[in-house]
């Protein structure tokens, strides 16, 4: 599958410019107040500005040197701007991604069908796509771009969806059934269809997604809210620390400048995670979009990380869509070559993948066979077999066991016992037997096998390590289902599945407290999609299915569910690790600032200056510079997300604690010391 995954560079120049401008716009207190941590930094910055102005006006030196206060002010302002920039660049990237999708649906001419009287008649007028409303009808012919999302009400067409999905092979869409949905921006290659518009302009899934990644309508997810509360509490603790420090210092006869107080405060509050939090959320949505999944809400992406059970359709997800011939089993007394030749002959006109695979397995090529005058018999649902009548009188038939058995028995021949045995063996091995007869006599059995997708077992293994249970849904009989389930490594299966079986399975799991995700496309999947905690519908699916789910997969790729789960987990992990990192940073900052504050009155506290920072001024400056710089330094991590490793929960926690907890403890000691050494060159 060729994907045109649009990879936007992390810091593409165009994006950086726009984001930089946005970082200033976002300084507006009304916008800042949504992020309590950074809002307090902004207040601190304003206070420092006031101190500087007051100092310029009065010339008072009691608050320290002017250049020093101005530097502090500048660094604080930079801290806020960096945080804003992180959010802005995440938004800009999302926007750019969305924009590239949106381009496909810019104003295209639409052949709208107008009503005359109470009847729809084909009076077609070309209008702009933006004038189409829900319920309108339009016509698309070969070569037209489909102007709007809709459902085919009449006709059948091949459509090139590569603009949306990157998949170059055209797909067939037709009225009625599960393949009736078309997407705006895709191109009709053949035939003509009449389409009913299903969404109002600006309300299509894509529009919703664009609004989400642009951050405009982004609502905080439950975990994000809880984390914001925790961070706000930490911020308050540090308000207390700093406010009480004033009387403590008075008691110790130590004057502390406003600049020092504000620096200490800003260093301690979790600005790193506070500044990156919304960027992480937006980037999560963006990653989903990059995987060509349109989520209807940020919550859906987050929930995907919590999923315990995955319901996967067998065909297309676990097995390659089509069965393949894997063996020829001639009946007793039949020459192997003779049998194979008959198989090939019967499959020459068979355009199904199964038929092709038989010829492929036979390895005889098709050139050698002369088929002049041969009459090919098409497969029908009624006869359940196909075949060929050759001019020399040979009548070869190939089909399901009972169908071919009927033919032979009706012709008065007996069905050989060993062939029945062979059929049973193939079935119990998860294969499908095709029985071949010549002139109503049994020649043998062709074995068709489901081909399990390469690498799928490893993916399920990965999911199992994440604690996600996989369930295969198939129409096969339990015996075949069990065999394939074991071979593919899924944990459970639903055989001979009817739509309501999926629904019941989901309900049962949910009653046990599990979160269930499933993928579906048909209208009869809609109830189950709605019931599932994460319902991913395929873009090719029906409108009902798309409405019912909370994500749409543009690629129509059934394995996408697995990716979605990983994106959800990555989102949470990124938040958790950066929070840990941010809080662990504080230890080093304390060791930088506390001794600096009391250098004059309590020289003994210099023993706490374990970094050996040069002077109180450079210690404080180093700490806040580090604090400011760490935000842009972590933007790439926030946007890309922390790498997800499929380990057990405890192992994963140990790993992340070591990297981000211990790292968060050690890195600032080194960083602050380095900045202090640099500053020492100038101060």
């Amino acid at each position, binding site marked *: 599958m060729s994907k045109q995954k649009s990879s936007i560079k992390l810091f593409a120049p165009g994006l950086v410019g726009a984001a930089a401008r946005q970082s200033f716009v976002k300084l507006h207190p009304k916008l800042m107040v949504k992020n309590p941590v950074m809002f307090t930094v902004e207040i601190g910055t304003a206070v420092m500005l006031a101190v500087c102005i007051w100092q310029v006006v009065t010339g008072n030196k009691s608050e320290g040197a002017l250049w020093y206060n101005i530097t502090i002010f500048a660094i604080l302002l930079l801290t806020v701007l960096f945080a804003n920039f992180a959010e802005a660049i995440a938004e800009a990237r999302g926007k750019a991604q969305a924009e590239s999708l949106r381009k496909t649906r810019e104003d295209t001419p639409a052949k709208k069908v107008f009503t005359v009287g109470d009847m729809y008649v084909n009076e077609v007028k070309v209008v702009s796509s933006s004038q189409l409303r829900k319920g309108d009808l339009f016509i698309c012919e070969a070569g037209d771009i489909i102007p709007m999302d809709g459902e085919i009400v009449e006709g059948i067409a091949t459509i090139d969806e590569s603009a949306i999905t990157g998949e170059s092979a055209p797909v067939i869409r037709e009225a009625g059934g599960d393949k009736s949905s078309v997407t705006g921006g895709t191109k009709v290659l053949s035939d003509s269809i009449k389409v009913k518009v299903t969404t109002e302009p600006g309300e299509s899934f894509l529009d919703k997604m664009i609004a989400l990644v642009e951050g405009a309508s982004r609502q905080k997810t439950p975990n994000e809210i809880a984390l914001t509360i925790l961070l706000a509490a930490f911020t308050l603790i540090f308000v207390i620390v700093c406010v009480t420090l004033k*009387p*403590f210092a008075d008691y110790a006869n130590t004057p502390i400048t406003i600049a020092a107080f504000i620096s200490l405060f800003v260093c301690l509050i979790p600005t790193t995670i506070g500044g990156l939090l919304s960027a992480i959320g937006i980037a999560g949505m963006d990653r989903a979009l990059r995987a060509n999944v349109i989520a209807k809400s940020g919550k859906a992406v987050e929930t995907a*990380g919590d999923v315990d059970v995955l319901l996967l359709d067998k065909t297309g997800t676990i097995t390659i869509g089509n069965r393949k011939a894997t063996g020829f089993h001639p009946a007793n007394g039949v020459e192997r070559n003779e049998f194979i030749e008959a198989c090939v002959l019967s499959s020459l006109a068979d355009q199904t993948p199964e038929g092709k695979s038989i010829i492929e397995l036979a390895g005889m090529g098709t050139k050698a066979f002369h088929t002049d005058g041969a009459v090919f018999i098409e497969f029908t649902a009624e006869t359940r077999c196909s075949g060929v009548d050759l001019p020399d009188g040979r009548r070869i038939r190939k089909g399901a066991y009972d169908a071919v058995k009927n033919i032979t028995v009706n012709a008065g021949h007996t069905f050989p016992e060993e062939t029945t045995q062979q059929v049973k063996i193939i079935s119990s091995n998860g294969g499908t037997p095709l029985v071949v007869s010549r002139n109503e006599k049994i020649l043998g059995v062709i074995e068709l096998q489901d081909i399990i997708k390469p690498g799928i077992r490893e993916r399920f293994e990965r999911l199992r390590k994440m604690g996600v249970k996989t369930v295969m849904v198939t129409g096969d009989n339990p015996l075949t289902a069990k065999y394939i389930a074991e071979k593919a490594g899924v944990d459970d299966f639903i055989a001979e599945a009817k739509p309501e079986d999926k629904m019941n399975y989901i309900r049962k799991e949910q009653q046990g*407290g599990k979160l269930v995700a499933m993928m579906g496309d048909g209208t009869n999947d809609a109830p189950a999609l709605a019931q599932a905690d994460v319902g991913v519908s395929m873009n090719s699916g029906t409108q009902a299915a798309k409405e019912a789910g909370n994500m749409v997969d543009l690629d129509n790729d059934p394995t996408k569910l697995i990716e979605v789960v990983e994106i959800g*987990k990555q989102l949470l992990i990124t938040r958790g690790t950066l929070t840990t990192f941010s809080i662990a940073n504080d230890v080093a900052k304390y060791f930088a600032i506390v001794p600096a504050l009391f250098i004059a009155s*309590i020289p*003994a*506290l210099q023993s706490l200056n374990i970094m050996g920072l040069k002077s109180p001024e450079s210690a404080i400056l180093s700490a806040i510079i580090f604090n400011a710089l760490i935000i842009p330094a972590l933007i790439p991590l926030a946007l890309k997300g922390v790498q997800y490793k499929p380990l057990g929960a405890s192992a*994963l926690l140990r790993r992340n604690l070591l990297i981000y907890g211990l790292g968060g403890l050690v890195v600032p000691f080194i960083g602050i010391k380095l900045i202090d050494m640099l500053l020492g060159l100038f101060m």
Partner: protein
Amino acid sequence: MNSEITGTILLFALTLLLAWPLGKYIANVYAGKKTITGFLNPVERFLFRLCGINPAEQMNWKQFLKAMLTINMLWVVYAMLLLIFQDKLPLNPDGNTGQAPDLAFNTAISFLVNCNLQHYSGESGLTYFTQLFVVTFLQFVSAATGMAMLVALFNGIKEKTTEHLGNFWNYFIKSITRILLPLSIIVAVLLVFNGTPASFDGKDTITTLQGDTVQVSRGPAAGMIAIKQLGTNGGGWFGVNSAHPLENPNYITNAIQTISILLIPIALVFSLGFYINRRKLSKVIFAVMTFLFVIFCAINIYFETKGNPAIDKLGIAQTTGSMEGKEVRFGAAATALWSVATTSTSNGSVNGMHDSLTPVSGGVVILDMMINALYGGVGVGLLNYFIFIIIAVFISGLMVGRTPEFIGHKVEAREVKIAALVTLLSAFLIKGFTALAAYLVAHHPEMNLAVKPGTWLNNPSYHGFSEMLYEYTSANANNGSGFEGLGDNNIFWNVTTGIVLLIGRFLPIIAPIAIIGLLAKKKYIPESPGTLRTDSYTFGAMTLAVIIIVTALSYLPALALGPLAEYFSM
């Protein structure tokens, strides 16, 4: 290794040996299983009938809290009245006067909340009547309150989804009849045989060898001393608490009391595992607590046995360690162990003067009370620890990429909010009030209070700061011990510590019960390999990190200005 240090190790080992079976027994008592104290059934039935209680009636978390708060309110009024009018009541052989209203307020609250901060001296500030019917009474019921609240937590964790946290009265009564009373009787008898008084006579008069006469206070002390230790109360019969030769006559009584301090708090950690049938969870919690406890003990024993560097500088040998404020009959190591035990468990009794601890040890005991969850007070210690668990669960849940959950229940915004509030609260109470006191000392030393702020501190400078910090930390932790250099029996300290005591007791009880009430109502999620197990040592390490980081971040500046500045200046 010298015998003093061996002694402390043996003491701790013996405590653990006793705590394990006791934990099992406690779990059985609360679970209503058969125990050796089954013969008390009729007594309890009688009490329940007398009070009109149906012990089988289930309460939800709100009803549970309501029952607890109502009865506590009643007790505080009762206690205050008795203290103010104690001079008019019987059993006052020494003719002690009634307490002033602000002192009575402080004393009543202090014992109600299991803190036992004493701004009076037992010999002169109370009568035998109030010692028994206010102090000893509250020491039993406040301990039982904490334990009953803990059982609510147990029930919330044990059940998959429930609104029912059990019956407060049932657990409350049984805590007294089955656990506190029997153990107190054993300890009291042991103390009496070792010379602790248990008599209703007034002061004794002794003529010393030199011919002076000395008035020696006594009274029915042994029983009260038993419950003061077992119930992590800590309020002594005599002013100097267990440093007093009658309250704690010899090394054996010292050993008995040290064990009594730690016994129930540790046993309760074990009983959690037995009760909810998750012993691993218990073990992990115990390991985390013990890890810090042992480190703290090691630091204190090291610094106390090493002696005072200031005396070293004078060229005076200190072979027995730093003995200022310590009793010769116990020695430096036993006092160091006691100092950590009493501050870990929110007990607050002392067998030596904490004010005289070397600076680092002084800092450790303050830190110990700031954490207040290393075993902790009976019942409330685990409740405090639970708050740390919730924060650790939340952060580590995110780190493994799942909505955080604790024992099958999702931890969401509401629970995090409550947990964050409690964490915030301690920092606010301790630092806020210390700042207020420091402000008054620095800026208004002549302020027109009954006792001028300028004269509060016996030691100026860093140590004076530590004294104030200690007082509020002790009040917030409901510990009750003090850096006694502080002049604290006046309206400012009586009222402010009273406020801190009340808030510092009840919010940290209400919050965890509210959290478990909310959690237990949620849908139960069975564990999967993706679930972060809270009964793993990895998670234990995470909790440990949360405890250290949260405490360090909240209090480092205060500790730097007090004990650390003092240490580095020596």
